[in-house]
């Protein structure tokens, strides 16, 4: 048993923390206010290898591991939850399924552009009537011999407006249902019949792009079937197992960021003749929160480590996301409270962090869905 990070992982934290402080934090409030996707930051992240940490160098990744990747998302999210999820959705939800499920031609064609960050990736599973309940998929793909024709719409797609490459799930055989009936496809932005729909106006992570995807007689060549026909549900679920490590890391970063600024605030803010940091009731709350944050961190690094060791990580990542999401919401809400009226204003970052935290209990499987995954391990699947 070893709880210490490796020298490499420590160095990744040091680098991303510095990067986040210089490049991300100064524009975080502005990007949130203007609902502006930070294109320039993504370009810099690409240059330094932050957009492809856990992929081998032969595919133009950084040659790192999933613990380092989790640390990077955490450090970005400490100052900006939007930037954290841009990296997470790209790395876990698009590059990963192509890297893990793609054949050699697909990997050679798509992974280098994604892992190097030259292109941005997104993942399309959710529809107005189907998210985790993938059986409700309305998007259909019809086999036309040498290509498929896709029709349907996806919603809430992270990176939607800025992505070049998409992994899209569609029903190829309704009679077979979820298992056997769904297929994953690699879709390029420029494919005929593919377009970006409405951009969502959200409570938080306002600098990330969340859009609809519309496929209207969208032509997808046969060689872009990802995995086998009918294996789409497996592709999607295994992708989300990894994605949850990223979102848990985002939640952890948001919680840590809010906690850190609150510690500083409590040391300077005076009430009743003493600083907030001198009130034991508040000290105890901070002590409990620090413990919660650290527990979330351990769950996340454990899940990421399982993934690096090619061990089963589905339950571990569900636990990590469940706990980290709830921690982020609890901690940021308390941090706003400890800032009093100032915390409710946009002059302090904690209100943004509180708005950003909420989504971590919702996307890539709600907290309730994480409990379904965990309960399934206890009692068996239905």
């Amino acid at each position: 048993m070893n709880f210490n990070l490796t020298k490499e992982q420590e160095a990744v934290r040091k680098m991303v923390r510095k990067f986040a402080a210089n490049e991300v934090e100064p524009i975080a409030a502005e990007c949130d206010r203007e609902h502006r996707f930070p294109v320039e930051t993504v370009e810099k992240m690409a240059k330094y290898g932050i957009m492809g940490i856990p992929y081998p160098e032969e595919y133009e990744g950084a040659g790192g591991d999933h613990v380092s990747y989790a640390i990077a998302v955490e450090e970005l999210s400490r100052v900006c939850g939007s930037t954290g999820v841009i990296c997470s959705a790209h790395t876990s939800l698009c590059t990963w399924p192509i890297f893990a499920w793609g054949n050699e031609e697909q990997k050679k064609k798509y992974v280098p552009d994604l892992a190097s960050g030259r292109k941005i990736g997104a993942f399309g599973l959710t529809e107005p009537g189907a998210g985790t309940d993938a059986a409700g998929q309305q998007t259909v793909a019809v086999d036309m011999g040498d290509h498929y024709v896709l029709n349907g719409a996806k919603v809430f797609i992270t990176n939607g407006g800025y992505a070049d490459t998409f992994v899209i799930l569609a029903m190829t055989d309704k009679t077979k249902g979820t298992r056997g009936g769904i297929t994953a496809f690699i879709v390029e932005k420029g494919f005929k019949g593919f377009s970006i729909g409405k951009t969502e106006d959200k409570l938080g992570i306002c600098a990330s792009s969340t859009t609809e995807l519309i496929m209207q007689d969208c032509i997808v060549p046969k060689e872009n079937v990802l995995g086998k026909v009918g294996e789409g549900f497996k592709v999607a679920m295994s992708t989300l197992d990894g994605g949850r490590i990223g979102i848990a890391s985002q939640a952890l970063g948001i919680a840590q960021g809010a906690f850190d600024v609150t510690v500083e605030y409590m040391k300077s803010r005076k009430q009743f003749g003493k600083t907030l940091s001198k009130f034991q009731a508040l000290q105890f709350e901070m002590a409990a929160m620090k413990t919660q944050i650290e527990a979330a961190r351990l769950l996340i690094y454990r899940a990421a480590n399982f993934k690096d060791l090619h061990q089963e990580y589905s339950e571990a990542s569900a636990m990590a996301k469940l706990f980290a999401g709830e921690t982020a919401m609890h901690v940021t809400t308390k941090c706003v409270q400890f800032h009093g009226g100032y915390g409710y204003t946009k002059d302090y970052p904690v209100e943004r962090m509180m708005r950003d935290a909420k989504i971590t209990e919702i996307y890539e499987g709600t907290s309730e869905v994480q409990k379904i995954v965990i309960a399934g391990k206890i009692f068996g699947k239905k």
Partner: protein
Amino acid sequence: MAYKIIVCAKQVPDTNEIKTNPETGTLIRDGVPSILNNDDANALEEALKIKDAFPGTTITVITMGPPQATEMLQECLAMGADDAILLSDRALGGSDTWATSNAISAGIAKVGEYDIIFAGRQAIDGDTAQVGPQIAEKLGIPQVSYVKEFAIEGNEITVKRALEDGYELIKLQTPCLLTAIKELNTPRYMYIKGIYKAMKHDIKVWNAADIGVDLTTVGLKASPTNVFKSFTPKPKGAGQKVAGDTDKELAVNLLVGLKEKNII
């Protein structure tokens, strides 16, 4: 054209509250987080920019320090340096600037050929700004300190040397030594890919015998300068603001004040 570049770097404590050993007056480095010295990061960045522009260019970073200085060298490698050398030996401990430059110039002589040596202007722990220039003297090569702009064409280098009230435009030939100031560039970050490579890199550790340095010219005892006393200067107090509505009035009031205190 490709160049051979040597960068002199130093690991320094990352704190404003530097603790000193009350007996020797030297810095206590244990337990203090350490960083790559700021100006040295500018020195490395300029070398990396040359490497970006002229493929085939190689950069070797050299430092003198305790074994933990390898961490700083790994950071330099992760930023893009090709090789790193640590001069580490108890015999070198406690060296002042003269003794340090004896050791480093001996180390550089062992490295062999080079076109440019970059060093930072000065280190934030000692602030002497002497080691870079001394190395150039001992190697017998031209030097320019306080470099804020740099250009190279073939063997000819053009630099701007910062002065308090302007700059000097200087042309010189390789091989030479230049010391960098923060105005020269903005240092890059470590590359994530570079981090994994750096940790696997075999950093050369040379002791005093390896570099063949005369032991009577290095270390604490050989150092002609010694720390006599270290102390924290007392705060000066609030000072006095000169008031006045016009420039002339301000000048008059200032002169009157100075005369009253018998300063002028």
